[in-house]
């Protein structure tokens, strides 16, 4: 019992240290971390033998010591990120946005041209849209197979991911990658590796919107 009291006191004093959020030098830090680790293993040993209410109390203490360890690491981590963060090259956001706008727009313009072509040749508006989607999906997969689409993606970014060709690319790329593991465990199982979330959440959102529409009407 005596020992537990001492351990709890040490634990509480560390808690105060953490609240002040002080940066320690290497040696002090090592000492504290060693103390935390030793306390942790002691409590684990007590907890293994304890029963009932006592066990629950010790479990709480163990979790609290665990949290201290993480909190001390967090101080180091934040300090490091402050130092290392500014060294990272700046993402070229403006350039990316412009390129995405250009290439995304280009793909959509091509889509519109195809639609107009279908309409001019006698398809109804709605059917022309469906036919266009089919053509673009084919094109996306085809250029993925030729190994061109990922090169385009390097420059176009979201511009080539958001249109339907990007969706086709994500499925064709997964299929190409998985085919070496066979048609069942490879292609079959992993075809929607990347596109899966889009389908799942696309469906979920369309159900929600459908419900909203149903009740508002």
């Amino acid at each position, binding site marked *: 019992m005596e020992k537990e009291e001492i351990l709890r006191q040490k634990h509480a004093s560390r808690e105060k240290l953490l609240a002040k959020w002080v940066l320690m030098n290497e040696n002090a830090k090592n000492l504290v971390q060693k103390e935390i680790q030793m306390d942790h293993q002691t409590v684990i040993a007590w907890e293994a033998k304890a029963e009932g209410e006592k066990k629950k109390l010790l479990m709480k203490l163990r979790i609290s010591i665990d949290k201290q360890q993480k909190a001390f*690491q967090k101080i180091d981590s934040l300090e490091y990120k402050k*130092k290392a963060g500014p*060294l990272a*090259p700046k993402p070229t956001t403006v350039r990316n946005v412009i390129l995405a706008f250009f290439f995304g727009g280009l793909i959509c313009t091509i889509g519109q041209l195809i639609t107009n072509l279908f309409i001019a040749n006698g398809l109804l508006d709605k059917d022309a849209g469906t036919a266009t989607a089919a053509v673009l999906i084919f094109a996306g997969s085809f250029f993925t197979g030729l190994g061109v689409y990922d090169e385009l993606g390097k420059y*176009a970014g979201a511009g080539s991911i958001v249109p339907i060709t990007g969706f086709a690319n994500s499925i064709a790329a997964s299929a190409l*990658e998985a085919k070496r593991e066979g048609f069942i465990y490879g292609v079959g199982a992993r075809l929607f590796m*990347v596109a899966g979330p889009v389908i799942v959440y696309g469906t979920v959102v369309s159900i929600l919107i459908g419900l909203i529409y149903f009740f508002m009407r």
Partner: protein
Amino acid sequence: MAKNKAGEQTLAFLRVPIISTWGTVVGPMEGEGPLGDYFDKILDNNLYEGDKSWEESEQKMMQHSMELALEHAGMSSKDMEFYLAGDLLNQIIVANFTARFFDVPFLGVYGACSTLVEGLALGSTLICGEYADKVGVSVSSHHDTAERQLRFPTEQGVQRPMTAQWTVTGAGSYILGSSGSGIRITHATIGKIKDLGISDTNNMGTAMAPAAFDTIKANLQDLGRKVSDYDLIITGDLGILGLSVLKELMRAEGYVTDNVSDCGVLIYRPDQDTHSGGSGCGCSGVVLSYLLKQMVERRYLRIFLIGTGALLSPISAFQGESIPGIAHGVVLEYC
């Protein structure tokens, strides 16, 4: 006190292991890089003729690199008393299949991209402890096998951030001996895992830099050396960003950084569009052969090579865990 240990973390090899011969096989992109001329074999394609999978080709690369090393030494694979190998794939399949071919006592090692130095340190220990006279060490990585395991399908059109590194397609094999001429491994410093909370899988250099710094510091302390006691301190695959972070950390504690470099920075030209440089076991695995040739030509007499590993698992990364970094070092000396 253990008599072969110097300080806290450093092994001193009294019976000094010698790297006598080596073999390297690289992909086309590494062949086009500035060190292309130093590699033994350059593939025309990331896939060997007739191979169905990249994994198969990576296995051939590792095997061929060891066979080249054996050929240079005039040995057969059976002359290797122990074989230590590792790679980046789950269950280190490349190393296992290569060892299946050689049919010699085998230890698989995994330390992500620090595997080369881990293998060299363990192999040196076997030789220093008089458990063996000839030990083979191989490592490999392959851009396409690594990307599909750790990130995206290779044909997917994604934009890689500027902090991302390019996994080197390359395999390097080294034969350690207890006698003969070559480059000596005098010390090895075993590193600690350092994890400062970086969880971005496209920023491995920053994740590994603290581990590299810790190992460098430990080595200098253990041996009572200064940075300038080495002609070159070179890390495995910190890349451009990781190297600048490492230098920043070193400067903050008053170390000079003039002779600090990184294999991942050396292996590609800046215009090869790799963003932050090379990475992977194969990066230090093949660049070491270049460094050894420089040592043979007496351009460097003493090098501290630090293998840096980002112990990344896609599973733990998706679960929100950060990436632990590890770094081991070996001291290479010309004799």
